[in-house]
């Protein structure tokens, strides 16, 4: 599998660390922390997810990928991702 790092270009997935659903935003209210820490989207289909280019440019990126086909639709730097 190749992950399209917005900075480095397409790279072997082995260079990356994965961290799931990119949607959760760190909450401010205490009672929202359970969901933030434990409930991440796990859809069968397109998903925006976090990857860290650990053996590359060290960017956290948001990749849009279909979890059924592994097809990748695009990627952007997490710090630029729409919030």
């Amino acid at each position, binding site marked *: 599998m190749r992950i399209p790092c917005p900075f480095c270009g397409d790279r072997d997935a082995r260079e990356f660390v994965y961290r799931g659903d990119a949607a959760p935003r760190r909450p401010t209210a*205490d009672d929202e922390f359970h969901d933030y*820490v434990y409930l991440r989207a796990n859809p069968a289909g397109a998903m925006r997810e976090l990857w860290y280019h*650990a053996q590359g440019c060290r960017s*956290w990126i948001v990749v849009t990928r279909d979890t059924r*086909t592994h097809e990748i639709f695009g990627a952007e730097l997490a710090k630029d991702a729409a919030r």
Partner: protein
Amino acid sequence: MSRLAEGGLIDRTKPLRFSFDGRHYTGFAGDTLASALIANGIRLVGRSFKYHRPRGILSAGSEEPNALVTLRKGDRAEPDSRATTIELFDGLAATSQNRWPSLDFDMMAVNQIAAPLFVAGFYYKTFMWPAKFWEKLYEPLIRRAAGLGALSTLPDPDSYDREHGFCDLLVIGGGPAGLAAALTAGRAGARVILVDEDRIFGGRLLGERYEVDGVAGVDWTNAAVAELASLANVRLLLRTTVFGIYDGREYGAIERVADHLPQPAPGQPRQRFWKIIARRAILASGAIERPLVFGGNDRPGVMLASAVSTYVNRYAAAPGRRAVVFTASDSGWTTAADLMTADIQVAAVIDSRPDGGVSASRLPHDVETFSGAVVVDAHGAPLRGVDIRAADGRIRRIEADLLAMAGGWTPAIGLGANLGSRPVWSESIQGFLIDVAPPGLQPAGAAAGTFSLGAALADGVAKAVSALADLGFAVSAPGRYEASDEPSGVTPLWHVGGSRTKAFVDFQHDVTDTDIALAAREGFVSIEHLKRYTTLGMATDQGKTSQLNGHALLAAATGKSIAEAGTVLSRPPYGPVAIGAFAGHHRGAGFRPERRTPAHDWAASQGASFIEAGLWKRARWFARPGERDWQETVNREVTTTRGTAGICDVSTLGKIEIEGPDAALLLDRLYINTISTLPVGRVRYGVMLREDGLVMDDGTVTRLAEDRFFLTTTTANAATVMQHIDHARQVIWPELDVQAVSVSEQWASFSVAGPEARRLAQRLLPDFDLANSAFPFMAAVETVWQTLPARLFRVSYSGELAYEIAVRADHGEVLARALHTVGQEFGATLYGIEALGVMRIEKGHPGGGELNGQTTAADLGMGRMMSRKKDFIGQVMAARPGLTAPDRPCLVGLRPVDPRQRLCAGAHLLPGGAAAVAANDQGHVTSAAFSPTLGHSIALALLAHGAERHGERIVVHDPVRGPDIEAEICSPVFVDPEGIRVHG
């Protein structure tokens, strides 16, 4: 000898000696082991899996289910190798498998007598009584009988390499379709990789006698390959099997670099693992001929017709003297013609199609032919004759030592299903074809069901043209090829009824027609259940020749069409791949890289023993002559450090620089304690939590400037913490203006600890005021050592007066030497991580045993460090009841009541007198050591209500290692609890 007098793509000037089961034979360069065996008249090659039936050679390619041998000997022995793909080399030694004592006389063949019991799934119904007998009796028996070849158990002596390929077009298979595709793309200027698993290109052309553009197929191939080789944008890979298709248009392939040699040259890898990224790909993998299912179809001497042609045409080896051809397709007639051209007698051609006889005119002279007829039983091992049932129902025996069967062709589309799309049935070709192809891939030629040569060539061109168009390459004049073609019609015959002997569907696994019927009867009617219940298609050939016949039989048994019954998925690898090839360089000591500190070699010269700490090699201790054991060495290192001074390499700690206007703010959010109040030039101990509230890591934070900090992490967590910080600043709080970079590799650092540490350090830095007043505990400074930037920290892990000195890594060894030289004047010792560990336990500092991802800051006695005045990662979740429960085990010290006894980490803690059951389990020992300072064993432990129980006695329960020990609970700080020494 069965070698034909002339012809074939073998080099008769290069005879090669080889042995099979200890007997010696000769073949020629260009032979496979199978063709050489055939040329030597050997017909019995192996034994089947379950019934141990004698087996010969079925095919001439990688689909072979029967002719499996163990190739080579000793540590290079390779069990389960297909004789049909082994290239002959001089001195080749092969042995047959799965027989005892010999291939001709196999005791295990008694299984055949019990065969009526050994039907599909029989083992699920028996061997259950008595229960204990399974492991002791039944299973060992089954296991011994099963399995094929034996593994040497010696380390593989060969090496494996890897390579990465990138291209516009990958062409998988260099038969006519693949060659035509590669030529088209190569001429258009695209970057092309053409692979074939054979030793030469040509595919079926090598085994056929067709012509292309008026020249022999082989000559056309040679010209095509020569042209391709002349193109700089084309890469040709022979002996290379594409074994799998993966995401991102990635193709895995194995190049057999040296398998055709007696052994690899020095430094030469045996095989090379390719990862190829191809924008487009063409699957021109051809088609595989199907056997016919009739009684005795597994007997040595019964072969695929196309294989017969290949042996005769390509290898000039005659698989028999008197042949019968049994065909359901036109290609059987081609084989009959090939045999006759080679002067091999064709006793009869039996075509199951009522109108099959029309092809008789294709034969050069008269042969007895039967239409609408079948072979019902084959006799002899090796084959002596066949019983045929003519159209009128009469049975007739025909003597023959070779039966060529042509059941039709199955496109070799296994790779196309690798991404999970099931092939679909095609009525027109009576076979399964790729439905949804992997992105960028198109099948071509026989793999696309385009069987005839002319059409396959044209399809190769057309598919290449379409791929090139996608990529924006212009093709000016696509090639057109004229082929001397023949019809390729087939009317499948899935099963011959009325046989009296076993009819095999899956040869290697001994799955018969009746097994399939039985499975259906027992409810295993899903194609996937059928597979698992009968093991159809699960052998080393993955059912390349058997799958479709089996599925057709299931369809018939359940009254469905083949399209409804469906087929199973082919998974990688397409052909079996040596595990060593996937591992490549990363085995043995090269499994993972090794990290060495800058002073590693110097430490070794000082007598250091090293130990793994993650990827690092760290000095464990520095033994001196005369020391009896490591304990004595470590005791000395600790005692000398505490009494005088010690020097320790701490370069492995993770080191991170954090800069920017918001650096302090970020650090406040990362650590449980407040960092923003830290003055410049000072160090603070800090603890980080994960967002779930459990401790992630601990370390020090130094403020180098108002907006510049230097962090240390534990050796084990360096990468995790860096990732965590990047996550915090890029994902959680991208609005912060803060930069972070790892400088772990930049600094070599050494700890100098002990009462003499100041004097020692002062000698190193004569111009710097190290007095307590000027440079107190937890002070830090960027300074200069000799002419180099250096950093000095007054921090202590050992609990002694201590300094950490760091210089650029490339000067680390120089610093180590300088410290040692000065140290010797003071009687300082070098110490390793074992002594470091003892001293940290003596001081009650948490280490690996305590920072195990399951503890909270409070568990470790650091609950009060958690600031309430700010938000930090983990704060909220750390407050959950489960993480704040008063009965959570917390950090205590333990000392044995009998000071001669030793405590061990991993022991559990039980109240005195309580039964050794889980209900009484109150905690466990996290770290333990012998304390030379106290003269007895000490330990840290996590114990329920531990903080309130100092002075109590408890049982240290360690049944996996030894008897219970009584211990006294105490403070985790064993040495200098007031912390006077560090301030000294």
